[in-house]
């Protein structure tokens, strides 16, 4: 089943998103071409991006990793780009990694960011120990040559036993999905809110593979969309014995971070949830859903902190998708999971969706944002009918959350809305 945002992406949103990626990259390539040949980072910028000149738009889109595009966004958004040595290094590093197979034999890149640093090539699955400067060269489809700090190394990428193997693992031999746990600034947003899990990646990879099979059984169309967009799964440590973190990043479309301890239907739910964040991020890259009101924040029934309107819309979109996924899962007999538990969770999320929708000031939505909210409203109405939820019934836990939020965020209670006739929030 497609979400409303997914349908919008199919109707032109993807095309606009991909155009935005290429436009930014090409603008950087133009700048790089004009950079001085004086041995500076700008020189490396010119030489490194020059290697991508021969690639067609389709090659760039197919080969590009989320990490490469994030570094494109990062450098594009910075001032005095030619002088941003570390950003340039990260862009060239992730670019060489992304397009290794598309580059001609002998193509190479010089990486130096002014400080000793580990180099990470996530797609090739290689980590090069801390170096001041390195030159990487493609010798063949599976041979990578590394000249680093005066010594030369040749890596056979087809051999799994080489010493610089990164903590990455393909989920299946035939699929594009990879589990990755390399906490590196070039691969993460700056405000990371989770700790990458350590240890053996195989159990997590197996669970993700199993979860994707379940999603396929439950909703084949949704699973196809997930396979198309999400190729990177990052396991996170649990924050406490009962707190599972998960998140997605605006500029890292195609990567999901989630608790390493999830399994079964809850892991499916987490994948579905994070996928829908990614979908909305891709749409928002070129489309506005909310109008500018930078200071305005609102109550979200899922969060302890006040949220921007865009953040609240993300919560509504993702949890609505989860509720629909729960409904589809309940209809499938061949998968065994805690059905009463999921039914209860679905009913709770429906109440939270109803309360969350109340917080949205309609005048602050663009027509596109309004259309998304309308679709969510229609889905919630359907769920309320199917689950026979009375509008005045609100779970104790949901009321308690609202009560605590009001107590801890007294400055924002003027934006707080509560269903008419429903029992008041209680502590």
């Amino acid at each position, binding site marked *: 089943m497609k979400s409303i945002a997914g349908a*919008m992406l199919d109707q032109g949103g993807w*095309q606009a998103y991909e*155009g935005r990626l290429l436009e930014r990259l090409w603008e950087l390539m*133009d700048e790089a071409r004009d950079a001085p040949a004086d041995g500076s980072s700008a020189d490396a910028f010119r030489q490194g991006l020059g290697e991508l000149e021969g690639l067609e*738009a389709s090659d760039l889109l197919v080969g590009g990793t989320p990490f490469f595009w994030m570094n494109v966004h990062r450098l594009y958004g910075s001032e005095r780009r030619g002088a941003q040595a570390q950003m340039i290094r990260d862009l060239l590093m992730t670019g060489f990694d992304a397009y290794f197979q598309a580059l001609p034999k002998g193509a190479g890149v010089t990486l130096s960011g002014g400080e000793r640093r580990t180099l990470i090539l996530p797609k090739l699955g290689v980590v090069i120990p801390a170096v001041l400067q390195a030159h990487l060269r493609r010798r063949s489809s599976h041979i990578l040559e590394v000249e680093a700090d005066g010594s030369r190394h040749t890596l056979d990428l087809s051999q799994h036993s080489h010493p610089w193997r990164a903590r990455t693992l393909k989920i299946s031999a035939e699929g594009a999905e990879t589990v990755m746990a390399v906490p590196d600034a070039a691969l993460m947003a700056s405000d990371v809110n989770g700790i990458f899990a350590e240890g053996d990646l195989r159990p997590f990879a197996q669970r993700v593979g199993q979860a994707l099979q379940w999603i396929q059984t439950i909703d084949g169309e949704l699973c196809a969309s997930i396979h198309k967009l999400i190729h990177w799964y990052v396991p996170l440590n649990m924050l406490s014995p009962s707190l599972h973190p998960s998140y997605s990043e605006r500029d890292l479309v195609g990567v999901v971070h989630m608790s390493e301890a999830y399994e079964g239907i809850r892991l499916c739910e987490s994948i579905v949830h994070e996928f829908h964040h990614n979908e909305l991020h891709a749409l928002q890259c070129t489309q506005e859903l909310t109008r500018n009101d930078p200071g305005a924040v609102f109550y979200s029934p899922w969060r302890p902190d006040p949220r921007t309107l865009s953040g609240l819309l993300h919560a509504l979109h993702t949890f609505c998708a989860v509720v629909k996924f729960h409904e589809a899962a309940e209809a499938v007999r061949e998968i065994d999971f805690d059905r009463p538990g999921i039914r209860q969770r679905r009913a709770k999320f429906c109440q939270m969706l109803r309360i969350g929708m109340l917080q949205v000031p309609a005048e602050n939505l663009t027509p*596109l944002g*309004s259309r998304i909210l309308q679709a969510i409203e229609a889905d919630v109405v359907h769920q309320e009918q199917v689950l026979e939820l009375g509008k005045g019934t609100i779970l104790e836990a949901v009321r308690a959350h609202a009560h605590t939020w009001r107590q801890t965020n007294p400055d924002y209670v003027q934006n707080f809305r509560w269903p008419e006739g429903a029992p008041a929030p209680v502590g």
Partner: protein
Amino acid sequence: MESAEKSEEALAPQVRAILDDVVIKEDGLAFVNNYVDWVMTLRKLPAKEHSRVFVQLAVLARQFSAAGCKPVASSLASLARIGLGRLAKPKAPDGPR
């Protein structure tokens, strides 16, 4: 008394074609169709010789922005920058990218 005469510059054919590719759907989804192709086409255009194309795109971007259609405004502004950026750098090569 001299009569003031208003003249409206005709749109360059490329700009007209780009405008024909602007899509604004009922639900508000707005974008330039074939955007990647347009970026590639304009990158091949010598900026000095076709400065009118890029200036007209910049003006249209401003008009779409004023009308509240930010996605299209942003795309047209980016297309305009392809040439205007090169025109603003006197020493940079003007030829196709």
